[in-house]
């Protein structure tokens, strides 16, 4: 499975793309594959303040529920409302239309703590077995 090299990752299988101090976040292709058909995504409200590593929501497949963790600290500036009607977008396009939310970073130095693609790929490979 290819892991995009322009993104950063958490060990809890979120990805982030940083643009102008705002992180767009989603879950990785590996995570959606493990989860199966996504049928519900519960996201924080716009305006909510998140702390790094805090549980920020839930994602559910037909069979399982899994927590979402804030990959970075900051304020939620946008959530992907299209997922309410089409949660399966997370499966179909996890790095694109299946994004979850956008966070305005309060501490840009936290980005350095995230995994790069190679480190995440190794983590995901270990996790699969």
């Amino acid at each position, binding site marked *: 499975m290819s892991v995009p090299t322009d993104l950063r990752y958490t060990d809890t299988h979120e990805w982030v793309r940083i643009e102008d101090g705002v992180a767009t976040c989603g879950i990785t292709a590996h995570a959606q594959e493990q989860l199966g058909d996504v049928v519900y995504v519960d996201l924080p409200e716009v305006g909510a303040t998140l702390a790094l590593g805090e549980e920020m929501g839930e994602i559910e497949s*037909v*069979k399982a529920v899994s927590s979402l963790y804030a990959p970075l600290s900051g304020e939620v500036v946008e959530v992907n409302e299209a997922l309410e009607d089409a949660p399966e977008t997370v499966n179909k396009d996890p790095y694109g239309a299946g994004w979850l939310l956008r966070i305005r970073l309060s501490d840009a130095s936290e980005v350095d703590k995230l995994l790069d693609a190679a480190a995440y790929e190794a983590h995901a490979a270990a996790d699969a077995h």
Partner: protein
Amino acid sequence: MELRRTPFFPFHVEAGARLIDFGGWEMPVQYAGIVEEHRAVRRSVGLFDVSHMGEVRVRGPRALDAVRHLVTNDVDIVDGQAQYTVMCRPDGGIVDDLIVYRIAADDVLICVNAANRDKDFAWMAEHNPFPEGATFTDEGDAWAQVAIQGRNAVPTLQKLTDLDLSTVAFYHHAPATVAGVEGCIVARTGYTGEDGFEVFLPPDGAAAIWPAILEAGAPFDIRPVGLGARDTLRLEARMVLYGNDIDDTTTPLEAGLGWVVKLAKPDFIGKDALVRQRAEGVKRRLACLVVERRIPRPGHPILHEGEVVGRVTSGTRSPWLEKNIALGYVPRPLARPGTRLAVDVRGRVADAVVVKPPFYKRDY
């Protein structure tokens, strides 16, 4: 412990199925995805490996009488007929739910849950009222089993057998050769809410029958279906799952299985307790819930006016109805359709309403 594998295991690996430990068996939970597999069965036809299910054979002049003593239903069936029933403890708790297939007056096949196979066989052998006239044999290793389920199950399977499937009525069965595999039993039973068949076959026929069924079903876009969709299909049809919805602490009357309890029958294990419970009235019933917004899961508390009144025993997002559905025990007065309840989904309270069973009923 080493996981057991069915004779179809190589096909699951080849198809790229995701495998899980289910009651000690390494089984496919999904191939393409639960939602897609579920919809394939509702729309057309699906193929399931259910070889993990257990089989017990009862033979002898008193085979039928022995089974009648062990189970709650009347087993008042003819050769080639089948019957769904439960087997109870003396206190009315359920040992297992099972299907009894009458092969002949002195020959009965019983299909039991995979996880209960050893427990059931031991129970039956121990409680056999006629050891002289009825012999119980664990035939779990002697049979593989596939299910072909959906509105196109008949045209799919008919290509592979000379047995005229139109002569096999619902909950009936017949011996047959299927895809060249001799010694099969073709039963019009299932666990999906659809028309279809469960085929018992000798395990060495597995290699021939799986690809033959997929080829015969190709014009109908047949899909292999894993245990994930098997669970969502059965739940939509309001079929109970042992270990979730029923177990040795629940009685068939509480579980809405009163239709398989024949209290007029002379004697059977659990009769006294069930007669008493029927006379006193059950205190709780397994209700069907539709839940708003949140997906209920087993163990979630069911609330009425803020008080916990029960627990979810099975719950999922329904892939066909696109609603959140659940089963759970609630006090009898609250089990009436239309009753407003709520479910505590990990700390968030979601509105729920009791609905008339089943969630899904086939229209053909």
